[in-house]
């Protein structure tokens, strides 16, 4: 890794503050780094033992440097010491006094932390001061802010309250007087929009690198969009594979003749089918987690349910996927399309009645079937000739995608919900989390426009016939992307 020779080449920002204020957490969330071997985050004070440089790079070119620092250990004593180096003058100490302090105490063990964190500031780094305003204001905080003010660097205060509460007015007033800008950023729950806002704040405290910071922000925006497109692509592939998936089991002569045995086999087949679908969904979600650089979100492997959705429960089919009326309209549209094809092939002799009747049939079918429990598509076929492995094998059961029109929408809803749950997870957290479908108020897919639902429905129909309409893929991707951008 090549590093710039001088701090001036790349805008640099030092993350400072008292020990255990969450400096490293803030940085971990900002840089999307949840690996403890890179950025150690814990409740133990002093995890950051030295200053560490972290570069945000674009195509291997460093754009911004963040410096994680150990944190103030003895701010009041350090402040008094700096004042001593400044002398009796009535003016406030400045960079010179701080430089003197650093030079002197580099040789001693007395102020190791202060020396480490002040050095980058003297070299021109901007200041990002992390504070938890749930703590009462103490002299030590005042001392920290004074020292930072003496550096003469542009300063941004970031309120990282580790428990939910509003900052006191006293804190707000104090921070307002010491810092150029004050922002709130919860390292354990910050979203992309909040990270984006914090990065934009850097523009206001580093005027000499405005273009470079703007470029960084623009690149992050483009990259975020690309991640969304990539995720949508994977979700589309998941749906494609799931809708075309089928499983087969051979039935022995005894199974064929015995209804109980046949029933048991069918139940096992259904279970196997859903297990496979669940695995596909998990694989899809794992890929999305990698895209978004999440390593601490776990996927529950042995869940009974399809990501928490109970396919057998009637509530599932009313709460998830499209609403009955939406399904009805979508079914009507595909029925009309099928009827329209009849009109075309009769060269208009049916005078559009094909489309009309097709639409009505589609409406009726979907209306009565749409809200019902999954109607499994199970067929029994004879095994003939060489395909039969023994005389005992007579027939085979084949299970395909359930005929219920809402099934694909439920799959889509499920993975989109997982996606949004993942977005809420900040990288600054170090606990592992299992994401399963939660109780949510409304289905995501119901927010699609009529045109989007229509395009997706047509594509679903083509996938179920094992002839995916590739020309519809861009529209389907667009619809999925719109689901991923819902806030």
């Amino acid at each position, binding site marked *: 890794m090549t590093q710039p020779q001088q701090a001036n080449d790349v805008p640099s920002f030092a993350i400072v503050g008292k020990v255990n204020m969450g400096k490293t957490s803030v940085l971990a969330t900002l840089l999307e780094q949840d690996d403890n071997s890179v950025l150690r985050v814990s409740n133990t004070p002093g995890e950051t033992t030295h200053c*560490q440089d972290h570069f945000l790079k674009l*195509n291997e070119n460093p754009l911004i440097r963040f410096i994680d620092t150990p944190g103030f250990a003895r701010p009041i004593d350090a402040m008094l010491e700096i004042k001593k180096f400044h002398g009796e003058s009535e003016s406030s100490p400045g960079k010179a006094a701080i430089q003197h302090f650093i030079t002197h105490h580099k040789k001693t063990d007395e102020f190791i932390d202060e020396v480490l964190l002040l050095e980058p500031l003297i070299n021109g780094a901007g200041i990002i001061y992390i504070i938890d305003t749930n703590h009462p*204001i103490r002299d030590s905080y005042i001392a920290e802010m004074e020292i930072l003010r003496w550096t003469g660097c542009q300063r941004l205060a970031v309120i990282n309250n580790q428990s939910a509460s509003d900052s006191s007015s006293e804190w707000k007033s104090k921070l307002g007087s010491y810092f150029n800008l004050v922002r709130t950023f919860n390292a354990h729950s910050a979203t992309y929009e909040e990270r984006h806002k914090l990065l934009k704040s850097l523009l206001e405290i580093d005027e000499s690198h405005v273009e470079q910071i703007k470029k960084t922000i623009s690149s992050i925006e483009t990259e975020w969009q690309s991640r969304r*497109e990539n995720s949508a692509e994977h979700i589309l592939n998941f749906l494609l594979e799931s809708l075309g998936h089928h499983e087969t089991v051979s039935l022995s002569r005894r199974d064929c003749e015995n209804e109980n045995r046949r029933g048991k086999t069918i139940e096992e087949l259904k279970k196997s089918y859903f297990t496979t679908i669940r695995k596909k969904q998990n694989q899809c979600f794992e890929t999305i987690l990698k895209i978004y650089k999440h390593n601490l979100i776990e996927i529950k492997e042995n869940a009974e349910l399809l990501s928490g959705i109970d396919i057998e429960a009637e509530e599932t089919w009313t709460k998830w996927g499209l609403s009955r009326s939406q399904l009805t309209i979508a079914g009507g549209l595909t029925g009309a399309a099928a009827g329209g094809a009849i009109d075309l*092939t009769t060269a208009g002799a049916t005078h559009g009645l094909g489309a009309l009747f097709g639409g009505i049939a589609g409406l009726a079918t979907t209306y009565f079937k749409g809200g019902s429990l999954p109607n499994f598509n199970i067929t029994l076929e004879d095994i003939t000739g060489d395909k039969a492995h023994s005389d005992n094998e007579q027939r085979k059961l084949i299970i395909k995608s359930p005929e219920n029109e809402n099934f694909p929408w439920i799959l889509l809803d499920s993975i989109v919900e997982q996606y949004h749950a993942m977005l809420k997870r900040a990288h600054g957290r170090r606990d592992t989390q299992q994401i399963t479908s939660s109780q949510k108020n409304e289905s995501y897919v119901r927010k699609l426009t009529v045109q989007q639902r229509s395009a997706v429905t047509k594509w679903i129909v083509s996938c179920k016939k094992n002839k995916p309409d590739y020309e519809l893929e861009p529209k389907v991707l667009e619809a999925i992307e719109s689901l991923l951008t819902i806030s």
Partner: protein
Amino acid sequence: MGKWTLADIIDFETCVHHYSDDLKGDKLIESNIIRPVLEKQPKLSTKKKKSIGLKAWLKHRLKDFDTRPSTHWLSAFSSVNFLLAITFFNLGFGSILGLMNWQDKSYNLAILLGVTILLTWALFLFSTTIYLLSKGKSHPWFSLLTTLINHFWKKIKPADFPHYGTLHSLQKPLKKQLFKSLQMHSLIYSIGCLLGIIFVIFFLEVQIYWEATLTGNMTEFWLSITNFLSLPWQWSGFAVPTHSDIEHIRLSDFSLSSKKPKIAEKWAYFCMLSILTWSCIPRLLFYLIGSISLKTTLATTQFEEARHRQLWRRLSTEIMETSHDKKDDSVTLIDLGGSGVQLETIRPFILQKLRLNPEQIFTLGTLDASKNQLTEEHLRETKSPVVFCCEATEFSPKSIKAQIDKVQLFNKETQITLVLLGTNSPSEPSQVLIDQWTTWVDQLADPNIHLVSYKKLQPIEKNTNDSTTAS
């Protein structure tokens, strides 16, 4: 730049397949080649940028090939087209010669017009109907065609070329090309027929006749046929058969030995003009429509399939990543003598005072041989500094020196820090013990050995001169 040909699409699909994993190479092409091209034209639409960008990518990737992958495809197409052209011309010309009754050098008008005009239109309408009816369905004849294509595809495709069934971007232009080629060969057939009829008219004295079992309205029937066929040139009055002309060539009315040159000439021109107008010219029009359709298809190729999207995403997305200048603060923490000190309790002290990060605690100098061995193996493998946690009351110089020597055996330069603990660790040792240890360590006179006594850490907020009110 930006206009795609069929050859380009074949080459493109080959390269997309061949370079599907070369992210680094793609990024280099993007930054060195595509970006400069697109920066010169900032106002382009996204689709246009994509088309130009992918074309530039293709142009660069093709430099890795000695010959373009499409070359042997196109030469195969050309060879087949050439053979078919000869075949269809011979068919057309040969049909005219074959239809002639060589005994009296005569042509049955119905058969002549049927083969030269009706047959081609019937085939055209038939294949169009089949195409429309089977669109989107697996019609057995189209399945046969696809099977044939796949069969030859396997034989002639390069090793790294994807399966035809997955190449939707190629299927559309190939279908248009097929249509265009079929029209061309139909045109060649029609030209063959036309040249054939011209040949026999100018070099053989041929007669044309018609015959019918029914005597009824056949003349009227033929009059309507000839009127219809001669519509485009009826205005000139030239070569437009009349009622009497039709009657004259009825086989029952004249013997073929009775010739009337003027009427024969009229019928000859009529046949030539009919073939030209109703066979050649429409075929030429369809051929031109096919050409325009192919060009339009190529010009509007979207590249919206999954592998195209992935490629464009690789090319258009800049890679944001973070790099970390990590300072190694790892340490080998050893509980010397088995004081029972826990990692969670001693770690904060080690972090804050020694600026080292212990991730686990080892044991040495105990009766547990396996633990001792584990520690020694770790010391052999690692080069990190060592911290010995020693109970100050267990001051045994020879024993401790022996452990220090063990560490230095693996690496003489290892920094070793002795952390003195009180009993019931971690607790602070007494000053007397600290002094005792300090004297002994000083006597060792080894700059790599340090002594630190454990101190309980102050809560973070408490500092000297701190107060609750801001000063």
